[in-house]
């Protein structure tokens, strides 16, 4: 774990740290990663990963419209919107 790695994952997570904090966060992450490195000690050959403790299968739904139009409520709650759209600063492609 170095500053460059922290910079990369910070960007992936869209987070930024000021210079003072960078040292600390790098150190913290280093310690945490070192702590979880204990996992190496387990023999996990041929062990199927467990993603969910339920180990059941999905319940599904039928193809029927159940949603109502809540446009006004949704747009009202947005930080920036007009009568039709959520708005963000212009994205240049």
């Amino acid at each position, binding site marked *: 774990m170095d500053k460059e790695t922290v910079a990369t994952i910070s960007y*992936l997570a*869209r987070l930024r740290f000021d210079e003072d904090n960078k040292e600390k966060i790098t150190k913290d992450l280093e310690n945490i990663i070192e702590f979880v490195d204990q996992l190496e000690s387990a023999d996990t050959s041929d062990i199927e990963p467990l*993603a*969910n403790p*339920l180990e*059941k*299968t*999905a*319940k*599904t*739904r*039928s*193809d*029927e*419209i*159940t*949603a109502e*139009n*809540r*446009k006004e409520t*949704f*747009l009202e709650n947005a930080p*920036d919107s*007009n009568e*039709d*759209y*959520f*708005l*963000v*600063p*212009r*994205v*240049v*492609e």
Partner: protein
Amino acid sequence: MSWETVIGLEVHVQLSTKTKLFSGASTGFGAEPNTQVDLVDLGLPGALPVVNKEAFYKAIRFGLATKAEINQVSMFDRKNYFYPDLPKGYQITQMEKPIVGMGSITIDVDGKEKLINITRAHLEEDAGKSIHDLFDGETGVDLNRAGTPLLEIVSEPEISNAKEAVAYFKAIHQLVTFLDICDGNMAQGSMRCDVNVSIKKAEDKELGTRAEIKNINSFKFIEKAINFEIARQIKLLEKGESVVQETRLYDSIKNETRSMRSKEAANDYRYFPEPDLLPVVILDKELEEIIEGLPELPKEKEKRFIDEHNLEVSEARILSSSKAMAELFEKASEKTKDSNLVAKWLVGDISALLNKDNISIEESKLSLENFVKLIERITDNTISGKIAKSLLEDVWETGNDVDNLIQEKGLVQIQDESVLEEIATKVIQSNEDQVAAYKSGKDRIFGFFVGQVMKETQGKANPKSVNDILKKLLG
């Protein structure tokens, strides 16, 4: 130096479910912005996805039709990235265990068949729509499309040129519309594709570096974009430069591809199993039901048309090219009991009109009912074939009723032989020179008399009767 092109296609097919992949919001096209958005589609905290089983059934139909393995236990994963039209900050897709595994499809290029293997087909949710040019300095986000089910069909890199790529895309288009799992509406974005293009030396085994052209949604543009890209890459290689692995955008106005230069390329999507969704299981019983409900596929139809109606391969291929065309052929044949005549018109004049207008049969104004009438009026000698041709053009433009048009325009064929004889006599009397020539042995001039009679009758005469009468009168 001889170069070889290697192309792979990722086709995104919008499945024609009523509701979204994970919510009960409508997938209908053209609604007012942000009116078809459920709590899940907005990515509200605490809202959870619930799988729409119908999307799975539709995906499985595709899998079965391409002789692919169906994964009866399949799973969803999350693909993480930030974009305003991706409300949750991740897209739910299938990475590890897609519903459809390896399959294949046969394409036709200039009458030659080629088998293209399909690596996989997986379900995923579509993103919303970002509108960049409507508001001053701002981008608008419409989430109506967010969560719409897509089937992403990934081909093996076995396509060798732009023509094959178009043929492949057309074959997928034909198949998904036959299967009734996609409306095939290209203009509404129901089918889009990403194209991977790379170039290598003919003798090299290793593939070259590829560029991905994103989001093309027309047959024409696929061909143009690929051809541009091939030329661009070869030019680079010939100059001794190398191709950069990147995502490019096709600009249809300038007819060129250009680098998107976004940081997307450097993104790390951090796929991992979607913890909000357990594995989706398709029971044997469900699978059997889907198999039973599978419609006849294009190739099977083509073969049957050849066998049952004694058609040429080329004719059968056109008649089975789309579901609507095949249906029109079969229904009209059944009603008129003259499948050969029906085929002749569909393959000939009607296909020509379709090509001219660049539309599909279901987009035309020709109804089954009207087409049947047209054929019947030919077989019952109400109108001549020639009249029928011009009548078809009229119907094509207006969609008006065939019988009404015949009445209105007085196109009924003249059956009364005495009337024809009268006209023929008049033609003979007023063309003495030609009569003399004919009698002196110039047989070929006979056609002139036929033409004159047809002209007098405005094409309404039965050509066979005219022939007989003229022969009799001219001796």
